[in-house]
């Protein structure tokens, strides 16, 4: 098998925001990559920078006032660090995103049917309503929704959170993207529903060969889902390894603290981390065989 | 104690950091200053009455008559300053009466509920379903056009807005913890309404009152434009515009300066009110 380039390759990405009190650096030269068909997780707590990383990868943050990003983000070989038209065209078709709270992520004034048509027509303007509806129904069947017609005729507020989550997954995968970015999927749902939909997402992306970048704060969830894990803390990558490696032999104190806190019901404070220790300030620890493409893991 | 002064200081900081708010404050200060000291700082205080400088009737702006004179030779600048005084007095009186009435109605209706709520709010609706100006006009139509009657008419039309505002706030506040706590302790309804709920309404009330000073002046000038306000020779911004409109476009200053005067005062109070709203919200 030839070595293909990664679907997503981020190198030395830094991000700072210019605010009233000066510049604040949010990301410090992080790197990560996702190969075709792979499932990679980016784990960290709120404020760690994982969400902004995801948004930079989609070109969503670059236009914000005061945001300055440097480094390299390559999507299927194309440099998109500057945002702009390139990535805008790819959004929704080659790379898609699903969000934390499915019900509020869907537009409350359009039916699900209309929203599917909008998504499908953005890449194929000449698509007829009939064809779009057929594709939508097939997509909903893929996420195991029994009566797609009823769901299509509904509005988001009429459906349950779990149902909306499946709709979002279906919508995200309907154009067969190369990369799906899932930003804390299912966090707004209750635990059992979250587990179900994650399994669904796993199986479906497996079948379609879609690469997934999963953003999460929950290592337990990630363990079931991801092949490789990056751990991010306060804007810096602290550890990177295969799922099995990370869980078997975590190195960084933060990773260890995260693991010891699993399972937990809520995102509580992590006990017992001494932040000013030498251990903690160690540079990124990369497990065997997990470097970044094109050079040693930073 | 220090928490409260910290809040106050932060509110003040937000308030004064918006340049538009400062502009508004400057305008308001100017208007108030002119109104209070009109007797001393205007060049021709004697022109307030029906007698002007008959040698300089309808003089264009310039020289000793900064804004020109009207058809009776009266200095426009002076008359505008006195008109400001009248307008401010009217606005203050209208609000001093209508706001307590409206707020009380809103508090009672919102908290007590039941048929009291229904009755009070239906009455409020009745007043609100006559377009604002129409109600004031029809009241003025039935009465002699004097300052007092003008104030009465505008007051009658103004209180329902506060009733509606406070009603909505009270209804949501009535379910809050601190109200329930007071009820359990056995506090009287009066205490709950005025010592518990009302303090939470102050930001909305103050903001609206500030902006309303401008709008009362606007409505009052509309009334007098139609001839339903104070009568000559009392200086009034609306009637000045009405009188001047006949001589357009030649003696343009007769209309333009009073019109700008109205715009200025309404704008000033609006900007200050917006600044207040920002400052209060920043604190929330």
């Amino acid at each position: 098998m030839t070595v293909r380039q990664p679907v997503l390759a981020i190198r030395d990405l830094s991000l700072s925001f210019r605010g009233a009190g000066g510049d604040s650096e949010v990301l410090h030269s992080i790197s990560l990559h996702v190969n075709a068909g792979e499932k990679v997780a980016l784990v960290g707590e709120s404020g760690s920078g994982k969400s902004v990383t995801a948004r930079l990868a989609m070109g969503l943050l670059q236009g914000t006032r005061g945001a300055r990003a440097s480094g390299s983000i390559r999507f299927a070989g194309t440099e998109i660090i500057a945002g702009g038209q390139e990535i805008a065209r790819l959004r929704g078709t080659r790379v898609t995103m699903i969000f934390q709270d499915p019900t509020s992520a869907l537009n409350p004034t359009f039916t699900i049917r209309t929203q599917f048509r909008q998504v499908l027509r953005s890449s194929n303007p000449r698509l007829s309503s009939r064809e779009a509806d057929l594709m939508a129904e097939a997509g909903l069947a893929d996420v195991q929704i029994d009566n797609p017609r009823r769901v299509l005729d509904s509005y988001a507020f009429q459906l349950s959170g779990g149902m909306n989550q499946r709709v979002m997954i279906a919508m995200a995968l309907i154009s067969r993207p190369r990369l799906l970015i899932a930003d804390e999927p299912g966090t707004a749902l209750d635990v059992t529903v979250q587990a179900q939909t994650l399994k669904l997402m796993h199986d479906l992306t497996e079948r379609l060969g879609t690469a997934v970048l999963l953003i999460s704060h929950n290592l337990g969830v990630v363990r079931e889902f991801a092949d490789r894990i990056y751990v991010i803390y306060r804007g810096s990558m602290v550890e990177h390894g295969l799922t099995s490696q990370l869980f078997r032999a975590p190195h960084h104190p933060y990773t260890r603290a995260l693991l010891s806190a699993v399972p937990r019901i809520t995102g509580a404070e992590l006990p017992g981390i001494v932040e000013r220790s030498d251990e903690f300030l160690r540079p990124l620890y990369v497990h065997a065989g997990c470097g970044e493409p094109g050079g040693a893991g930073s | 104690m220090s928490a409260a002064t910290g809040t106050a200081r932060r509110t003040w900081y937000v308030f004064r950091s918006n340049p538009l708010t400062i502009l508004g404050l400057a305008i308001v200060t100017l208007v108030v200053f002119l109104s209070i000291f009109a007797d001393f700082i205007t060049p021709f205080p004697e022109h307030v009455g029906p007698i002007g400088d008959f040698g300089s009737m309808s003089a264009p702006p310039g020289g000793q008559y900064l804004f020109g004179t009207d058809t009776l030779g009266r200095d426009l600048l002076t008359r505008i300053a006195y008109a400001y005084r009248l307008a401010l007095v009217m606005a203050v009186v209208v609000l001093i009466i209508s706001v307590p009435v409206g707020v009380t109605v809103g508090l009672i209706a919102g908290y007590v509920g039941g048929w009291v709520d229904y009755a009070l709010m239906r009455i409020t609706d009745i007043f609100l379903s006559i377009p604002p100006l129409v109600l004031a006009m029809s009241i003025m139509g039935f009465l002699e056009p004097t300052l007092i009657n003008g104030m009465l008419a505008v007051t009658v039309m103004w209180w329902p807005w506060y009733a509606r505002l406070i009603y909505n706030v009270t209804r949501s506040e009535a379910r809050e913890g601190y109200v329930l706590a007071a009820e359990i302790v056995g506090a009287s309804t009066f205490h709950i309404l005025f010592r518990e709920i009302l303090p939470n309404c102050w930001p909305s009330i103050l903001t609206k009152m500030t902006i309303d000073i401008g709008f009362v002046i606007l409505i009052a000038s509309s009334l007098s434009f139609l001839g339903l306000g104070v009568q000559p020779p009392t200086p009034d911004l609306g009637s000045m515009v009405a009188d001047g409109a006949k001589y357009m476009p030649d003696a343009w200053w007769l209309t333009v300066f009073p019109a700008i005067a109205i715009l200025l005062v309404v704008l000033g109070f609006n900007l200050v009110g917006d600044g207040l709203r920002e400052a209060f919200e920043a604190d929330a």
Partner: protein
Amino acid sequence: MNSVARILLARTAAAAIVLIGVSMLIFTIARVIPGDPARIALGPLATAEQVEALRTARHLDESLPVQYGYFVRDVFHGNLGTSFYTNRPVTTDIAQFLPASLELIFAAGFLMVVLGIPLGIVSAHFRGGGVDHVGRLLALLSVCTPAFVWGVILQLVFAYFWPIFPLEGQISATAVLPPRATGFITIDALLAGNWSVFVDALYHLALPALALAMAGIGQTARLTRANMVDTYDRPFVEMARAYGFPPLAIATRFAFRPAFIPTLTILGLDFAALLGNAFLVEKVFVWPGISRYGVEVIIRKDLDAIVGTVLIIAAAFLIMNIIVDLLVVLINPRIRLAEKRT
């Protein structure tokens, strides 16, 4: 659509109650004023007997509730009394003058929506930037300026200095009026196929409608901007961006639709408020509407006419509010589908 019908019914019932209240209010005010209405009507030269005769004929010597009773009875017979000013039944006067005002108000309402909403969308799109600040300041200025000042300014600029538009009136004195169908000269002219009169009427309508609409345009722009800015922060807008929908589409469809619902309610109130400001504009432009009629009868203390006019205006106000409420229900799927929960 059960819920729609139910809401319509509830609003109409509430409006009816309110209208009754309004009638009582204005009737009471009219009868409680100082001065003798009969004397006022007939003037100082009438004899005491004439005044007395009029007073009896109009039931002015009876108690207030009885007078109100006569009034209600008359209203149900379509009789709102007679105007001393025109010496005609008030209903005739209203039927003649109301359409002209409605034409003005609808034209102003149209301008409010067509100009105000796009301005608000543009301002929200460029929020924080120069365009936004200028737009907000202009909107504020237009709200703070009374309608009669706008009227005078527009007259000065566009009827005097650059005589593009006529100075006053609803139609040129020399024009031949089309047959009266709706009372809206513009529509009547269109219906009659009379193009030149239609254009003439439009020219006359332009400035007054704009003057009337200015405050509303500013208010609509501010409101739209505020609601759009709030909506831009909602998750589904980020999702729309994540799907690569172009910013223009987001501004005008995906973000606008949900933002429009709270806008519409207040828009309705502003539109109805035009009824009040119409008085000012009609005076400036000598527009033959009910507001001008209203001012005249108010100045003359023409009681029946005043009561009738206020009542009709309140009724129009309430009807407009009901229509706006209906529109909100129709546009907001949440209310419309409140019954069908899955």
